[in-house]
């Protein structure tokens, strides 16, 4: 192991030497150098973008005043961070506290022994563990060991609809697949787009697959896939899922030109709140941005939300959810003992305190801790928050977003194949076979 480590460093030195030199000459210090003078400081990388950025900053500021050490916080833009953190970990330059999404990514870190096993920490501090909603621990656990602490808010994927549009075309929120297809037909003949979808972003289309597969085959099908069981992708339910996508495409269910739309400009949300589309399947986080930019769409009660419809003959429970259970924080195995000490203190006294939970609720998010009913009832978004909060606690299964749950190599393959399935350039059978081959290698 030691030799391998050495050769890895040497190689990295050769390939990354250029960039290190460039960095040095620019006068910026790497993450390793930002620890400060004292030994009792931990570095922490998190994602930029409101409202999360302000909430995290507030949590860290409050912790730094407790005199248990200093947490040094740096923010990065979401997509850039995903690649940056992996490179940093591989180069032995990881921050003490690593933000992540749990699931497959966490599994590779754990397998490479790059993150601390926190199982005994949570056994000793069971009061910390007990504060969290049960459903969020799955994605933090690898082979029965816990490697991360949940953080922030729960973001299930929700079928949103525009009540004005549905009223105009004489339809109601769908509860079955048949309802959904009849809305598609009515919306098309009324000249509005049935479903808004930012297909260029790919993970948006993948959300459809996640719910379709759950409703057709139940949560077990993806559980087998995520566990890496051989030929799990060849399940009949996967092909059936692809056929439902074909059905949607044939019925022109998605807005014209959906393959050109990207989620990062929020144009899919805009279609919904400008009454140009009837429905949209998106993450719960879009509630906040539709409220901010939707011109009264949310405040006037025109936004509707419901569970994803059931499919006739399918095994999935209407209460099953898919989405992102939480954000996750891990401790780098490369950090010094003093740094790890500060990080653990932050996990105990800084992460998801009552004040943090309160500020999450204020921004329309559902914190991942228990006992928030009163605070939510008092919020101006109480209807929505309580609906999600109870949905999470009652859900028999909460499947993690596929691109987070799978190994990164398979996840990239999944996104490419999903896009091709939605373009109609591969058949459902080919989709299943491609994914099966990608998982096997």
């Amino acid at each position, binding site marked *: 192991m030691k030799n391998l480590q050495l050769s*890895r460093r040497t190689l990295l030195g050769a390939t990354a030497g250029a960039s290190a030199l460039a960095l040095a000459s620019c006068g910026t210090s790497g993450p390793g150098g930002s620890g400060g003078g004292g030994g009792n400081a931990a570095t922490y990388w998190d994602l930029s973008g409101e409202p999360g950025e302000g909430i995290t900053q507030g949590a860290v500021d409050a912790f730094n005043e407790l005199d248990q050490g200093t947490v040094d916080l740096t923010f990065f833009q979401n997509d850039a961070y995903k690649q940056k953190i992996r490179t940093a970990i591989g180069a032995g330059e990881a921050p003490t506290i690593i933000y992540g999404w749990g699931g497959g990514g966490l599994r590779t*870190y754990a397998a490479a022994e790059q993150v601390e096993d926190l199982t005994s920490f949570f056994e000793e501090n069971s009061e910390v563990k007990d504060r969290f909603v049960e459903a969020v621990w799955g994605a933090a656990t690898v082979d029965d060991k816990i490697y991360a602490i949940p953080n922030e808010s729960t973001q299930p994927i929700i079928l949103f609809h525009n009540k004005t549009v549905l009223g105009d075309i004489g339809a109601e929120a769908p509860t079955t697949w048949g309802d959904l297809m009849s809305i598609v037909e009515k919306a098309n003949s009324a000249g509005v787009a049935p479903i808004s979808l930012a297909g260029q972003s790919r993970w948006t289309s993948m959300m459809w697959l996640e719910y379709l597969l759950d409703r057709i085959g139940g949560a077990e099908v993806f559980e087998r896939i995520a566990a890496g069981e051989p030929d799990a992708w060849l399940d009949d339910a996967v092909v059936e899922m692809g056929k439902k996508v074909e059905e949607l495409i044939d019925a022109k269910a998605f807005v014209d*030109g959906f*393959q050109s*739309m990207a989620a990062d400009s929020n144009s899919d949300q*805009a279609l919904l709140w400008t009454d140009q589309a009837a429905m949209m399947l998106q993450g719960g986080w879009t509630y906040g941005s539709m409220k901010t930019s939707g011109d009264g769409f949310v405040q006037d009660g025109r936004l509707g939300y419901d569970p994803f419809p059931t499919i006739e003959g399918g095994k999935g429970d209407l209460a099953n959810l898919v989405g992102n259970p939480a954000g996750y924080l891990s401790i780098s195995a490369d950090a010094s003992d003093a740094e790890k000490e500060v990080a653990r203190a932050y996990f105990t006294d800084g992460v998801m305190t009552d004040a943090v939970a309160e500020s999450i609720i204020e921004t329309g998010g559902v914190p991942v801790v228990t006992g928030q009913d009163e605070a939510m009832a008092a919020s101006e978004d109480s209807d929505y928050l309580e609906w999600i909060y109870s949905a999470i606690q009652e859900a028999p299964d909460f499947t993690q977003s596929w691109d987070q749950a799978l190994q990164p190599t398979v996840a*990239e393959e999944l996104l490419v194949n999903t896009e*091709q399935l939605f373009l109609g350039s591969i058949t459902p059978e080919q989709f299943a076979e491609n994914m099966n081959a990608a998982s096997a290698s």
Partner: protein
Amino acid sequence: MTTTAPSPLPSAAQDGAASTSGRRARDRPQLSHVLFALPALVMFGVFALLPLIGVIALSFTTWNGIGPIEFTGLTSWKEVLTRSSTWNGLVLVLLMVVATWLTQTPLSILLGAFLAGPQRYRNLLAVLYFLPLLLSSAAIAITYKSLLDPNFGLASGLNLDVFALNWLGDTTLVWYVVLFVIAWQFIPFHTLIYQGAVRQIPQSMYEAAQIDGAGRVRQFLSITLPQLKYTMITSSTLMVVGALTYFDLIFVLTQGGPGVATRILPLDMYLTGFRGNEMGVASGLAVLLVVIGLGLALGVQRLGGKDANASQMEGA
């Protein structure tokens, strides 16, 4: 893409005039020569050669970016050569090289020759034409992405429904969109090169042609174009190598999609390495790109022929 090769013209004139004794002195390496070359050699070694050696070494390993690096011989190379994504990317990037050259070269020469004229209004136009040069690729890509949005882009802003096409979502159309945006970004650069070169052509040639009764078109075809030969080689080298390593704009604009319609080889390399975390395979793709790029660049230089270093100015 940002480096400019020096124009061969000034040094070419000196070469032609060099005497035999001077040439013999030049063959013997002197200490001063070595010292003068040292800074460039060190930079080249640290920033180009060392990383290249690292990448070649990595291409014989299997590595997910964070775990241990395992030397697995030709496993990664086998993967590189058998995955369909490699060949798709290779065909696309070669098509890109050809299409880029065919669209940008004629336009750049015409614009460059036009802007080389002495009139005042041409200077004003030149400033406008060169504006895209000031923008970064990422900014250009984000701007075009917004403009081309079928629901909230330029088409709906101007109420022109004919332009509300599925620009980035149609597997054929997206190709032309990418070509157009790249041309929009880089034609100004090549125009600048050609403008400088056209201005270097001695006025006496045109005067002589006028006396012989040659019209504008004839002057362009018989004087301007032949005189631009070496500039064309420089510009073409930059264009070919540039198109071969094209990445940032496409990455932001389409992410290689829809499907794999614009997943050219350099983009495939990046996505394989940093999204798929297969560093060994990605390194193999990188080596493949270096070899192809080197081959094409040498090929373009060869087009200049054996007299590539001789003067074109004799008799002027």
